[in-house]
């Protein structure tokens, strides 16, 4: 455990030192993964399903604010939907519009979750999101994760129904429109997942704030169990065909990820290194303020025990 803690200190040190370069890199990787996933899942527009386009846009994202990635991802999704059919594009656009206008207006800090949740669905580890957001977020994260779940089910539904939609080419527009909306709104699995994730987030959040020993660990386990229970009970009632094996394996994996997050997030403020410039009457100041690292990493010091005796008394006293 000590080795791990030391490793954590080194990582923190590394992050605070190279933060200027790491942040754009992280954004680049995130944007690249998100866009590749979107292209992989619903790459209907040939022009966008092109690695050079993805690379250019990702590079652009790397030096724009975080929320720009969400905007770009939403734009890509709508354009792909448009290539598939106009109805899908309209429905996706309305969903995004309502999300952006009603929720992002408050510009909460965890808007990126709306992007990360669908990504975790694609990776097959959606159960990570509620546990982790319960640990690091606030109850308001329920809305973010809920929006993420909606977006991901919408994309999934349209991607699965793409063949049916193209087969309905001869039908009129309203019928196709109704087909998409019906399937989207009557998706009991989606509502069940939103409910289960909401309960999990609130439960994890409440327990982790209790002043008891191992509050975070208890919170993770209680959250994971609650998640499984609600999804299984919901499966029995609504017949949503939740794969039990996938649920359990996914949750175990989610617990592991949550433990890792706990290790890095618990009691640690990854406050940022700041560089500021100012001046007074006499000087220009270029100050780099580095947050203090509370637990010092052992700097290797060589202690010479034998030589100590030979030293004159005065040096010892000075020590």
């Amino acid at each position, binding site marked *: 455990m000590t080795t791990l803690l030391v490793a954590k200190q080194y990582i923190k040190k590394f992050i605070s030192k190279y933060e200027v370069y790491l942040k754009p890199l992280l954004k680049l990787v995130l944007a690249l993964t998100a866009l590749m996933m979107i292209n992989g899942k619903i790459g209907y527009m040939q022009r966008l399903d092109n690695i050079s386009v993805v690379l250019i846009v990702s590079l652009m994202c790397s030096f724009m604010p975080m929320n720009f990635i969400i905007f770009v991802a939403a734009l890509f999704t709508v354009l792909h939907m448009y290539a598939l059919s106009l109805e899908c594009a*309209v*429905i996706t656009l*309305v969903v995004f*519009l*309502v999300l952006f*206008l*009603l929720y992002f*207006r*408050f510009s909460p800090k965890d808007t990126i979750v709306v992007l990360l949740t669908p990504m975790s669905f694609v990776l097959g580890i959606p159960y990570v999101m509620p546990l982790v957001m319960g640990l690091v977020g606030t109850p308001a994260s329920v809305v973010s994760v809920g929006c993420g779940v909606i977006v991901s089910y919408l994309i999934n539904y349209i991607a699965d129904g793409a063949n049916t939609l193209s087969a309905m080419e001869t039908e009129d527009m*309203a019928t196709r*429109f*109704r087909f998409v*909306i019906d399937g989207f709104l009557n998706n009991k699995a989606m509502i069940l997942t939103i409910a289960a994730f909401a309960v999990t987030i609130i439960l994890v959040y409440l327990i982790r704030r209790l002043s008891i020993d191992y509050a975070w660990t208890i919170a993770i386990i209680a959250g994971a169990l609650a998640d499984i229970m609600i999804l299984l009970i919901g499966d029995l009632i609504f017949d949503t065909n939740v794969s039990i094996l996938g649920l359990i394996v996914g949750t175990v994996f989610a617990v592991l990820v949550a433990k890792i997050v706990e290790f890095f997030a618990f009691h640690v403020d990854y406050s940022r290194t*700041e560089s*500021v*410039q*100012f001046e*007074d009457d006499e*000087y220009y*100041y270029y*100050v780099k*303020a580095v947050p203090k690292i509370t637990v010092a990493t052992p700097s290797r010091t060589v202690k010479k025990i034998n030589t100590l005796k030979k030293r004159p008394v005065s040096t010892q006293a000075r020590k």
Partner: protein
Amino acid sequence: MIKEEKVILMTKLASYESGKGKKDINILNYFRGDYIGFQILKSVIAATVSFFAVFAVYVFYNFETLIQDIYKMDLLSYGKTIIILYLCVVGAYGVISYVIYANRYNKAKKNLRVYYANLRKLAGMYADKE
């Protein structure tokens, strides 16, 4: 001579100014009522646009039945229902935005008070020197 205490204080002030302070100062440029009112107005517009977007989808979804029944149904009461629904949505959203933005204004005020206190302290340091 560079005074360490002064540099630390100035660094704190500068980092606040270039970071969170920018937003806070923007917020406090308004009077409380003006700020909250303006934000609620924006919220109402956002809610209106979203409501009509969803309503348009609803109308298009029920297009056939609506066209069939348009002469049979009581348009006045139908319109009334929609207006009431619209007012409910906008009202609820307005209340939520009021709570959030009132909270934000108070927080900004509190932060800026600390900032001004530090600024006075810095001014005091200059006064001592002279």
